[in-house]
């Protein structure tokens, strides 16, 4: 007989590496199941013994299960007056970490902070991003230090105070505090007082990701070292050169501003151009994106300036042509047409580039309109020379005492700078780190700081606003605020809380309790715009254009991991990257065409998980082994690598995950344009990716249109789907077999505006916190067993469409094959779509459940009853939106899933109103039914109706951009009723007639036509 015929169920099956003959790809772990046959026969337990044990065991288990455990109920001895068990309390506080500020409302239950949301009482204030949202879990990190350490041995505060005071007093060289930017006015005062006692004290600011280029360029242009504040909501034309302003660039508040000017209902939207090398969150949201190499960025900015100068009849500077000159001229014209209503920004670390950007904005008269030099941002302040000078000082032995606060230079400085060897020359090294990190490991005294949710504080992120921070829980461990340490060492008799109150009373006239309640006070400031100096000469720009290399490297910041401070936060580790959807990893990104050329590929193994090649990345004399992820949309010849990974000293969740990109962060420049090369090495890397399909395959999942078309027809892009039937063309609902549900009290609906969603992922983390969603770890994510109740789908556009196939006569197999591939041209577009349970009113899941564990409510919600579920997973299979999640294991109290739920401390973040699900049951978004029920109860208690906007579910609260609206559609005046009538609103996969309670609003771009 001829060779046996083989059928492949996926492309990867045809690979030789995968065995086709076996039912299971991987060898069954028989040894682990039966242990060793030899030991089995050598065992002294006979068959009769076994049966005896079995019988006894069964009996004992039965008897044990008959008796219910005795449950203790321990009330307070002295109950604080404002705490009622079961009722949450909210406190206004503030967050400042990784140079990111947010004004918060902290929800506490019985004294435990469990959820953070934006304090919308103030107009300014940074937005709350995914990391800030997840920071509440880091409060309950078991890796935090339990008390002060002296030479890695636990000691007491009194001992440490005596020892450190001795050392400080004995010091005759320099005492140095290294910290990230401090925006607390009272701390600045404390440091001044400290300097009065210790004259040789110096404060060195070191921001991990420095913005010295902007600060220094402003020093030159305005004669003042500052960062202005930006108003993206006032800009009608935005041009960004690799500034990822929706994610990390300067301030997360930009995202809220940006989306507020992207509402087509207003009749206008800002137009956004993005020139960038990697595919960033900001680029993904842009109207037009130009992938260019990092070395070209400065060239393009200069060219744009030149064009602007010549268009406004000013003396031109000599620049070379670029590949996109035509587009640059058109953009320049548009900018000039929007004088005073435009913004040009750049993420460059080069101060000359930043200076030119400033000059462009001055030329466009944007200062005082969209950029404010009067109202300044204090979020960054460090100067790159300071830390270099410190290393020299340490090497020369000029420093006696060094202290580290909110900074981790051993991790975040490239090892080539020799920080670790320099540090050895300092006899007294003190760290205020909350947990043992790379730097505090090398310190002889560690004075653990309290978490920000346990601390007092004040913050002045922008001129004109003063925020307060208050403790929402008493310190869990024997840690102490660093401010208290400084006060104590300077011999002050009062503690920081008293100091702060005194500071407030002397500087502000407002009542303290009112300020604490609101979380902030407004202060007067000089809002006069600064006058630029006319000291620009074209000779400055000579030779600043970066040299181009064959391969260039750009380092970037992931929204989930940031600078790496929160690396031990399992929620963030499992939050999929906004663009690549990869969890638990960083990797080199490369464009598809470049990868093909170099023979690098990513492939799916038989269970659908993604594997990829590994390369050696060489930059100068540094070599590092990195996995490679092929990223559509990235410019050819560029590699991207994210910061924040590769921590060696952190807790169990973050240790040794990914590679440390700071090794290549030379001279505080994210770009390395020369001497970069890669070579493929043997081995493969396993990615844990939550979305493996790239495109929509020609389906209408995300409906999209352009503003120009929308203004003509507000239903453009949102064509009603019609079915062919015996009655002619009808809406899917007209052919229904279903009976309508009764609706009388409420009908909860949700609207998601795809124009306001930037894909950031803050809602995903908020959902974790609110609904006790477990973390499953990398291995399980690879098996598609992630438990996110809310996911954000990302789709790339494809070059192939059905129309094009028809026109060009492409066969359908070839067409679908092409459709699977994202566009590799400049025109690649990206859309994001948050998908949670759609709460179908004709729900496919409900009809297939054999035990009626999932049922429909009169209020339009699809209920999931865990205690009734027997785990058939029929509902999961029948769900067209794939939003149901199955508990394959017990994720709490399970050493196999050693994350926050396997830890008494980590469990303190759990929401007591929501069940912790057990093994073998299905779970999914409940529309935060606990909040709905609570609000209804509040209304009934107060004998009134539920107000519109009163029910605030976790994802809605987390979305600072206001992309999510939730409410009662039976209330005719509610926001949601209006959204429902919006011509942009549509149901996801409407053709199935599932009648969801969730609907989306079409994405509208503002492309130039």
């Amino acid at each position, binding site marked *: 007989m001829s060779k046996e015929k083989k059928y492949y169920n996926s492309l990867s099956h045809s690979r030789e590496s995968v065995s086709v003959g076996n039912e299971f790809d991987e060898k069954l772990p028989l040894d682990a199941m039966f242990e060793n046959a030899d030991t089995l026969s050598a065992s002294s337990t006979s068959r009769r013994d076994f049966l005896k044990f079995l019988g006894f065991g069964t009996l004992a288990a039965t008897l044990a299960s*008959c008796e*219910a455990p*005795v*449950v*203790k*109920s*321990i*009330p*307070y*001895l*002295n*109950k604080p007056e404002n705490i*009622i*068990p*079961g*009722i949450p309390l909210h406190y206004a506080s503030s967050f400042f970490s990784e140079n990111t500020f947010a004004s918060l409302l902290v929800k506490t239950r019985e004294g435990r902070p469990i959820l953070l949301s934006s304090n919308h009482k103030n107009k300014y204030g940074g937005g709350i991003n995914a990391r800030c949202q997840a920071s509440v879990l880091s409060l309950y990190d078991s890796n935090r230090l339990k008390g002060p350490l002296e030479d890695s041995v636990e000691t007491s505060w009194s001992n440490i105070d005596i020892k450190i005071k001795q050392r400080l007093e004995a010091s005759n060289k320099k005492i140095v505090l290294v910290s990230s930017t401090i925006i607390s006015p009272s701390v600045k005062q404390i440091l001044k007082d400290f300097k009065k006692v210790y004259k040789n004290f110096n404060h060195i600011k070191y921001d991990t990701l420095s913005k010295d280029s902007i600060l220094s360029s402003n020093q030159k242009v305005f004669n003042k070292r500052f960062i202005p504040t930006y108003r993206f909501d006032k800009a009608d034309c935005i041009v960004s050169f690799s500034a990822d302003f929706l994610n990390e660039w300067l301030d997360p508040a930009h995202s809220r501003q940006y989306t507020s000017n992207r509402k087509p209902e207003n009749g206008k939207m800002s137009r956004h151009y993005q020139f960038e090398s990697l595919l960033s969150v900001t680029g993904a949201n842009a109207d037009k994106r130009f992938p260019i190499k990092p070395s070209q960025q400065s060239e393009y900015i200069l060219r744009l300036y030149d064009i602007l100068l010549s268009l406004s009849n000013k003396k031109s500077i000599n620049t070379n042509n670029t590949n996109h000159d035509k587009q640059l001229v058109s953009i320049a014209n548009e900018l000039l047409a929007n004088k005073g209503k435009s913004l040009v920004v750049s993420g460059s670390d080069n101060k000359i580039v930043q200076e030119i950007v400033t000059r462009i904005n001055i030329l466009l008269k944007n200062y005082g309109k969209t950029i404010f030099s009067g109202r300044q941002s204090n979020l960054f302040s460090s100067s790159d020379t300071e830390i270099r000078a410190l290393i020299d000082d340490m090497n020369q032995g000029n420093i006696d005492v060094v202290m580290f606060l909110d900074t981790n230079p051993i991790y975040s400085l490239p090892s080539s700078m020799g920080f670790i060897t320099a540090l050895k020359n300092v006899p007294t090294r003190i760290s205020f780190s909350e947990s043992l990190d790379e730097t505090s490991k090398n310190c002889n005294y560690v004075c653990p700081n309290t978490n920000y949710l346990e601390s007092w504080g004040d913050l002045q992120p922008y001129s004109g606003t003063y925020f307060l921070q208050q403790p929402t829980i008493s310190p869990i461990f024997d840690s102490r605020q660093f401010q208290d340490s400084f006060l104590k060492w300077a011999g002050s008799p009062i503690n920081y809380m008293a100091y702060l109150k005194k500071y407030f009373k002397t500087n502000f006239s407002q009542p303290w309790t009112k300020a604490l309640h609101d979380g902030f006070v407004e202060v007067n400031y000089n809002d006069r715009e600064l006058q630029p100096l006319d000291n620009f000469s074209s000779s400055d720009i000579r030779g600043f254009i970066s040299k181009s290399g064959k391969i260039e490297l750009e380092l970037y910041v992931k929204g989930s991991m940031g600078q790496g401070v929160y690396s031990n936060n399992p929620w963030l580790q499992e939050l999929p990257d906004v663009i690549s959807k990869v969890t638990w990893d960083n990797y080199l990104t490369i464009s598809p065409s470049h990868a093909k050329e170099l023979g690098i590929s990513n492939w799916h193994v038989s269970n659908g998980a993604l594997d990829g090649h590994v390369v050696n990345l060489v930059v100068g004399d540094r070599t590092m082994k990195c996995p490679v992820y092929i990223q559509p949309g990235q410019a050819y010849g560029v590699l991207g690598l994210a910061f924040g990974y590769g921590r060696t000293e952190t807790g169990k969740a973050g240790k040794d995950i990914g590679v440390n990109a700071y090794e290549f962060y030379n001279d505080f420049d994210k770009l390395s344009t020369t001497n970069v090369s890669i070579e493929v090495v043997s081995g493969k890397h396993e990615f844990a990716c939550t979305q493996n399909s790239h495109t929509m395959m020609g389906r209408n999942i995300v409906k999209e249109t352009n503003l120009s078309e929308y203004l003509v027809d507000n239903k453009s892009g949102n064509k009603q789907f019609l079915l062919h039937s015996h009655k002619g063309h009808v809406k899917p609902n007209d052919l229904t077999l279903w009976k309508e549900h009764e609706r*009388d*009290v409420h009908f909860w609906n949700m609207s998601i505006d795809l124009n306001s969603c930037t894909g950031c992922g803050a809602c995903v983390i908020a959902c974790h916190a609110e609904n006790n969603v477990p973390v499953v770890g990398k291995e399980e994510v690879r098996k598609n067993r992630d438990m996110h109740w809310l996911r954000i789908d990302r789709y790339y556009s494809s070059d192939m469409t059905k129309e094009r196939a028809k026109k060009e006569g492409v066969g359908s197999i070839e067409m679908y094959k092409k459709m699977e591939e994202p566009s590799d041209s400049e025109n690649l577009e990206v859309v994001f779509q948050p998908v949670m349970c759609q709460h179908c009113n004709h729900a496919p899941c409900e009809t297939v459940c054999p035990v009626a*564990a999932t*049922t429909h*409510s*009169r*209020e339009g*919600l699809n*209920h*999931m*009853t*865990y*205690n*009734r579920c027997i785990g058939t997973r029929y509902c999961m299979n029948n769900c067209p939106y794939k939003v149901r999640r199955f508990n394959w294991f017990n994720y709490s109290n399970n050493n196999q899933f050693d994350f926050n739920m396997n830890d008494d401390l980590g469990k303190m973040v759990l929401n007591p*109103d*929501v*069940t*912790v699900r057990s093994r073998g049951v299905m779970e999914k978004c*409940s529309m935060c*039914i*606990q909040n709905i*029920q609570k609000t*209804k*109860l509040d*209304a*009934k*208690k107060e*004998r*009134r*109706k*539920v107000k519109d906007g009163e029910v605030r579910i976790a994802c809605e609260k987390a979305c600072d951009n206001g992309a999510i609206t939730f409410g009662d559609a039976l209330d005719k005046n509610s926001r949601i009723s209006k959204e429902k009538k919006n011509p942009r609103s549509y149901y996801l996969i409407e053709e199935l007639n599932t009648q969801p309670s969730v609907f989306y609003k079409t994405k509208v771009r503002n492309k130039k036509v």
Partner: protein
Amino acid sequence: MKGFYNPFLSLFKLHFNVLLIFQICCIVSLNAQDIDAGASLYKANCTSCHYMGPYEKKLIGPGLNAEILEKYSREWLYDWIRNSSELIESGDKQAVAIYEEFNKAVMTAFPQFSNEDIDNILAYIEQGPEEEVVEIAAVESVEAPETNQTTLFIVLALVLGNLMLLIYVKNVLKTAAGEKKVGFFSSALSWVRLNPSFVILFSVVFVFAGMKGCWNSLSKVGVAQNYQPDQPIAFSHQLHAGEQGIDCNYCHHSARESAHSGIPSANVCMNCHTHINEGRSEEGTKEINKIYAALGFDPNSKTYIPGYEQKPIEWVRIHNLPDLAYFNHAQHVNVAGLECQTCHGEVEEMEVAYQHSKLTMGWCINCHRETEIDLDNPYYHDLHANWIDKYHGEEITVDMIGGRECAKCHY
């Protein structure tokens, strides 16, 4: 005490009752009218500040017993009780001495009391408290349930005895009739062979009874009705909620606002027990002292011991819903206006608290089926008219507006 006659117990009761009646008669013969009136006046007006007992047994004011009649003249007492501050101002030595002794706390004035009223009160004070005796009388009726069991055994024993007697008689008669003696089992067997229909019927009944028994016992798994654990402090709801008539919400105040009714914190106990340091019996005082031991309170000086390491009171939780069920007290107590007793039974009669209801899902659902919603609540206002049309004026139960949906209680 039903059905079963216990000669010893009833003899004891008789004896005891005679004793009690004799004692009461003795007291009554003294000054019946005065003491009753005095007792009710005393209880209404004096107990909150005075103990009955020697002078040293202080509450807010001194302890009261017959000694005061020796120490103070009747006239002085009239004046003092009607308006003590006047007496103090007049500079009366005895009055000022008391005023100083009790940290210048002024006794409430009772101008409405006539001399006769005061005489009655004094007569009551002179006689002293008689409650102790009554209390013992209340205790002895507790052992009733056990006798029920015994009755059952006696009845069973009687039936069995009669049966054996019948068999014996039958056998004797058979012997007398000269029939051949057959073994008991073989005769039973032959009887079974002759009556197959009876056997089938019997087995069917037996199997079904067994199944029903299994069902009954299985449906009790996890149901902790009548669960009555020992508590760290022998707190009596009967005394506090029953006799003293303290409102349930006073201690369990969060029941109106929150999901949890809450076990009162020790500072709530101290609102009263700062002053009430003694129980009715020695045991009672011991139990009160347990609160002081937890908080570090010294009842003699009425101060908290500084630096005392407070120890929480570990109550045993009686009502345990599984984690998967969400129950909210405020919804039921505040919104629906249910009495606590609806689910918790007559708590005010419980010496030791126990779980009154089954707390099973069927029990919850049944109530939701039967209970009407409060249509007067403005929350339902504009729905009211629709419902009248829809349900033709039928009563609207919780069930009808979705009170039986899964995720109302399971999320």
